[in-house]
């Protein structure tokens, strides 16, 4: 029997106004995407603190996907300016410490981009599947 494929756990932080609505659109359009993603709806991607992302990795997430409105479309005008600053910084810091490289992804998906949503989730899940379980999860616990 073929070995079972690794099923990663992915946490998605999606903004209420754009990406979450985009996910809705993907749903009502009956677009298929992998069920590995667990979605947490937030009012704005700017409310996602890097702490939450780190906490997700600590708790065993293999990937974290953050979705927000395109720059200029933020419901709160400038919320996503903060998102991109924080997340780009966090991506580089995680890379430096060798914790996770490429397991944190930020994508702007609008409410009208249902197909893009399905596409992004599909590609991200594929990528994480290839990477396998996260280092943090595999790391031996100190006694």
């Amino acid at each position, binding site marked *: 029997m073929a070995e079972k494929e690794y099923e990663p756990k992915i946490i998605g932080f999606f903004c209420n106004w754009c990406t979450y609505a985009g996910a809705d659109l993907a749903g009502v359009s009956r677009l298929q995407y992998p069920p590995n993603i667990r979605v947490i709806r937030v009012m704005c991607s700017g409310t996602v603190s890097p702490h939450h992302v780190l906490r997700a990795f*600590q708790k065993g997430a293999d990937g974290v996907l953050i979705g927000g409105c395109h*720059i*200029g479309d933020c419901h709160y005008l400038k*919320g*996503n300016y903060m998102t*991109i600053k924080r997340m780009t910084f966090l991506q580089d810091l995680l890379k430096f410490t060798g914790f996770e490289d490429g397991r944190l*992804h930020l994508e702007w998906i609008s409410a009208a981009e249902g197909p893009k949503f399905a596409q992004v989730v599909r590609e991200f899940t594929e990528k994480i599947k290839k990477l396998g379980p996260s280092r943090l999860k595999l790391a031996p616990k100190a006694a």
Partner: protein
Amino acid sequence: MDRLREKVRNLLKDGKVAGYLGYIMKDGHPLPHLFTPARPEEVGQAIVAPGDARYPLDKLLQQLAKGYPDATFAVQVRGCDERGLNELYKWGQLDPEKVVLVGVACPQDQADYCECPGPWPSVIDSGNKCKPVLRSQRVDRIDALAGEAAFQEWMSAFNKCVKCYGCRDICPMCFCKECALEHPDLMSTGKVPPDSIFQLVRALHMAGRCIDCGLCEENCPADIPLRVLYKKGNALVKEMFDYDTGSLTTGLSPWKFLGDESTMETKPM
């Protein structure tokens, strides 16, 4: 040293300052001390702290300023201490009008040990300028390690952590009343070593705020190379936002305001 004592004496005599926060030699130990006009004879014992005896004077100054909000204090600063004061002004923790600098330039061996890019303050009352170290070899070494190797290195360091919070408690830039490191929803409680993300959460807070005084690393009982982590954080902030931590000329911290139109692009998957 005489130059410094003379300046302090004059400051206290003129009544410009309510006190001078510096170091005193007491029973063979260099200790932080508040020199006041009431006891001018003590100024003769004022010293420049040797490199291996440093205290977070910026932090003590914050407490003093809280207790005596109307008073002006003079404080002994190195390059790093001044950067810290600048950053504290920006974050609204101290009033620049109420601080007088008594500057000390670090000797070359201290600058080399710290890999300090700016080992002297804007006012120098003791010592001479030395050669700054512009590139940290310790950071470069970790940068050269890729993924797994870097991870192993950091994990072996983080696993030594005894969660004493010493790095936070001594840090002159840690002024928050509530700390993410103690938030039960963000950090597991009651276990040692703490979550592997413990030091990373601190590194997040230190980015664009750490003034590279190195007290955290000197204070750490487990010898975790914290400084390398924070140096890298600052380097990233410089690279991304062109922000010089502790400089008065590059505006407010990039984390403090929302800013104008963002020109950054998301990274490809």
